């Protein structure tokens, strides 16, 4: 049996149970709901852009520790990045979880989000780790198409 303490570690526990990123922003550029109907995880992501740069992000909602921590850590990782940089990091994260990359140089750009690496060994939890990242991916596509909505 696998020891899960490497996944349920202090960083992930702290982010999932007591995240400082779980709040409401004002004057957001885009806001989007992401959910996994099978497990009931549901988050609302808020994105505030300054030109092409992610000035701030926040989330609300509920779900398992992995989905909540993944959302919070994603926000830490991507704050201050440009949309272009964010797209690349999102792809790297998705590739890491799907075991499609081992490029250490790329993985380093994930910063704390590399903590989710071993979720790739838990197929039933992959969706939880990816929820926020796919939601942000959708938001960026909508932003690129000028169809995203703020508050």
């Amino acid at each position: 049996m696998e020891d899960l303490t490497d996944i349920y570690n202090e960083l992930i526990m702290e982010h999932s149970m007591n995240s400082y990123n779980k709040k409401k922003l004002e004057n957001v550029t885009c806001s989007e709901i992401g959910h996994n109907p099978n497990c009931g995880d549901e988050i609302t992501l808020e994105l505030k852009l300054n030109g092409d740069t992610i000035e701030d992000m926040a989330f609300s909602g509920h779900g398992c520790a992995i989905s909540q921590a993944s959302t919070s850590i994603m926000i830490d990782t991507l704050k201050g990045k440009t949309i272009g940089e964010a797209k690349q990091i999102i792809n790297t994260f998705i590739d890491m979880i799907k075991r499609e990359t081992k490029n250490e140089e790329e993985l380093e750009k994930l910063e704390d989000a590399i903590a989710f690496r071993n979720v790739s060994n838990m197929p039933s939890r992959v969706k939880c780790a990816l929820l926020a990242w796919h939601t942000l991916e959708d938001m960026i596509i909508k932003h690129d198409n000028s169809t995203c909505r703020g508050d």
Partner: protein
Amino acid sequence: MNIEEIRKDFPLLENRNIAYLDNGATTQKPIQVINTVKEFYEKYNANPHRGAYTLSVEATEVYENTRTKIAKFINAKHREEIIFSKNATESLNLIAYSYGMDNLKKDDEVVISIMEHHSNLVPWQKVTKITGSILNYMYINNDYELSDEEIEAKITDKTKIVGISHVSNALGTINNIKKIVKYAHKKGAIVLVDASQSIPHMKIDVQELDADFLVFSGHKMLAPLGIGVLYGKKELLNKMTPFLMGGDMIEYVYEQDTTFAPLPNKFEAGTQNVEGVVGLGSAIDYIEKIGYDEIQRIEEDLLKYAREQLSKLEYLDLYLTPNEDNHSGVISFNIKGVHAHDVASILDSQGVCVRSGNHCTQPLMRFLGIDSTCRASFYFYNTKEDVDRLVEALNKTYNMFKAYIK
């Protein structure tokens, strides 16, 4: 039989060092069932009802003999009241489409309980929307049970169909089917009973229950996956239009019109899951060999122990009727402040298999104000050691989380 002997019949339990507590989802299979399926392919495999040759006739016999066996097993009056399907879901859809669609009119009412599985809920949403009828719910009380008052308040003169699970797959509550059937019949409604979670654990007598329809899946009672049963009273089934069209359910087919075969073939279009049917027959033999009395004795003891042990854990929320007599098979719980999926993953890492999520009962979860639970569900081959493993793994999970729980 002692439990050690019983467990030896289940290869998976011997091969895997796990506490398998997801029997509400599907049960493990005894070697007798596995061997029967193997023997079918080695000695009897042919397409029933099709060939004039001996082998096909023998395949037809094993298939039809199982129908007779099931009829006796649930005490149906006639063997042709037993219809094979792929699972309880298909059986429920058959009732909704073939009976519901033809018999519901505008402003008629369909009544189901808030604890129904999506399979006894979503088809009724569709059929009531199309026919302009109304879907009403019976809600549970603080004991997670349907009160007599609630039953009598919701089943009215306008009610035409009542759909009710015998045992709730999410709560383990045993519903008072006899009361519901009697009251519904008084009001002129027919009743369909979802016995998926009851028939593995208790004797079902369709005549005693006086159910108009009753459905179950084989795989939750030791049989292979992909075989289900619909029981229906002959006079109702005879009046219903077929659900699926195709081979073997017809009498004469012309270019523009078709007449249909009599029961039960009318509802069994296409080549059937014969290995599933013979496997289900073998599963019934196995259950009858142990006997429902013995199954109930083992499970009552086990469930009592599980209730006691889990009730001691103060960090748990239990979603459980306090009336032991009204409880069967499953215990739903959450560690306060921790999501069910996290709990299930950590239990899994300790070799304890429980289901987590909404258990295909989203309206019930919403009614309870939660989005998911963990569910431990038991069968007669489970042991007190399985319960101990669950408790130990829960303690470990709680210890991992407790410093962070708000």
